[in-house]
């Protein structure tokens, strides 16, 4: 009985807080059929926004993946001096409100900022920087505990067998952490696609130029173009689902036994 209640409770909670709102967006998007939704998405502004979002993610995700793996190795394996501080600071983007992140970038790259005057602000570079900043912690956070857990014995064994540092990383360490990396990448991607606050501040929010898909959704909604807003929302949701499915697909058989 208790277990039954718990299950119903959990499902009900999910249904009310997650499925209902998302489902409603789907319903509203296709309320007038497929074509109105399609035309809203195919408009030049919507396409530009989608392209901008994908470009930002395409730069931020690999950058944060490489940085995340190196950072986790530095924290766990090599105990580089000062990396305890890095370990603590890595979570900052999670703790900091994205609007504050945006403002700090604004101060840094603004007209009177330290790095001002490079045409960074209100253009694609600012959007990419903001995206990198907010999606930075995920790979590090996923990889650090796994690296700790697998320990160093396999790596030591490989070293006695003659493998160089890079070979050990490529053939022993990387395969052992690949699922943590993959999961971190999924989370990074989700965050990169969904970022609003920081991008809103640094992009200038210029329609057709620095408007990402999330900004597009918010702007259209405010302008009472709900059809476009819902349709673009659905594109974001679908990209997220496809990312998750791809990760599951890539999982090799040996891991699922």
């Amino acid at each position, binding site marked *: 009985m208790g277990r039954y209640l718990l299950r119903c409770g959990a499902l009900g909670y999910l249904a009310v807080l997650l499925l209902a709102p998302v489902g409603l967006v789907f319903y509203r998007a296709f309320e007038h059929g497929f074509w109105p939704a399609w035309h809203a998405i195919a408009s030049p502004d919507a396409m530009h926004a989608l392209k901008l979002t994908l470009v930002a993610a395409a730069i931020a995700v690999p950058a944060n993946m490489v940085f995340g793996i190196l950072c986790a190795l530095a924290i766990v394996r090599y105990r580089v001096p000062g990396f305890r501080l890095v370990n603590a600071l890595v979570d900052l983007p999670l703790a900091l409100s994205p609007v504050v992140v945006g403002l700090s970038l604004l101060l840094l790259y603004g007209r009177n900022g330290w790095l001002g005057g490079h045409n960074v602000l209100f253009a694609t570079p600012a959007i990419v920087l903001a995206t990198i900043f907010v999606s930075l912690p995920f790979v590090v956070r996923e990889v650090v505990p796994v690296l700790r857990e697998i320990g160093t*014995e396999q790596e030591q064994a*490989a070293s*006695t*067998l*003659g493998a*160089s540092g890079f070979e050990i990383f490529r053939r022993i360490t990387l*395969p052992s952490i690949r699922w943590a990396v993959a999961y971190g990448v999924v989370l990074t991607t989700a965050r990169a696609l969904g970022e609003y606050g920081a991008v809103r501040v640094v992009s200038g929010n210029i329609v057709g130029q620095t408007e990402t898909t999330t900004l597009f959704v918010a702007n259209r909604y405010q302008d009472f173009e709900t059809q476009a807003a819902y349709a673009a929302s659905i594109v974001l949701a679908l990209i997220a689902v496809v990312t998750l499915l791809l990760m599951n697909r890539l999982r090799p058989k040996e891991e699922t036994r």
Partner: protein
Amino acid sequence: MIEARNITKRFGDFTALDHVSVDVPTGSLTALLGPSGSGKSTLLRVIAGLDRPDAGTVSLDGDDVTGRPPQKRGVGFVFQHYAAFKHMTVQENVGFGLEVRRRPRAEIVKRVDELLELVQLKGLAKRYPAQLSGGQRQRMGLARALAVDPKVLLLDEPFGALDARVRKELRAWLRRLHDETHTTTVIVTHDQEEAMEVADRVVVMNGGHIEQVAPPRELYDAPANEFVMSFVGPVNRLGDTYIRPHDVELSLEPNGATQEAMVERLVHLGFEVRAELVRDDGEELSVQLTREQTDALELAEGQIVYVRPTRQTVF
């Protein structure tokens, strides 16, 4: 020949090795025996290059390898917890060392085949480590270490994580393997029986020092000090004399050099019987008898017997 000279290794405040020097002759099977914290594993890891000593030198076959990384030492290392490459099959594990040496495919396949035959894992080549038992994993670990024809084979408590039966099997098997290959081998263990059974030389370590280096028999018969005496077998301590439980004669009548004692407890261990005695001066004594001896004396708990040590040691 492995020569370790004046090795010192500290971990923070703890001195794991304090000016330790030891030689391992070519072709021997040497055991490093000692309690945990005695420095035996650290010494092995220093020889392998996995730990760097704070002072001292290591040479292999006359080559000073102290500054060399493990990759360039030509040692095979076997870990207590196997250190199996979990994402590789058995044959990929065994072939790893040859693979990173860029040996031709055909040669790798042939060598891996031979080794799997040697460690009796032929039918399991395509399995993953997770699908093997502990004993099988450790045999794979050995095959992997042997694949690169190491100058020396180093085993760190290789059977420590296995159950008693498998441990015994693998010990005998390791001894046979060594008799066939004659690879210079060092095995770390805290189990004196294992050291005695497998090795032809035993290095007894304690608190970062070497207490004695001797063949198993000599170690037992002529221990250098109290530590070695009590570590390599059970011992009674009476004042400053040490007596092994089997070096005591019991009789029912007092005769000359005997002392009175009461049988407090009899423990039957199959063929062997252990009698726990209390002497009239209150000292406790454990005596090892055969079943025949016990039956002949008609020993029973509470009985008074007379005790005469046949052999005792004073340090």
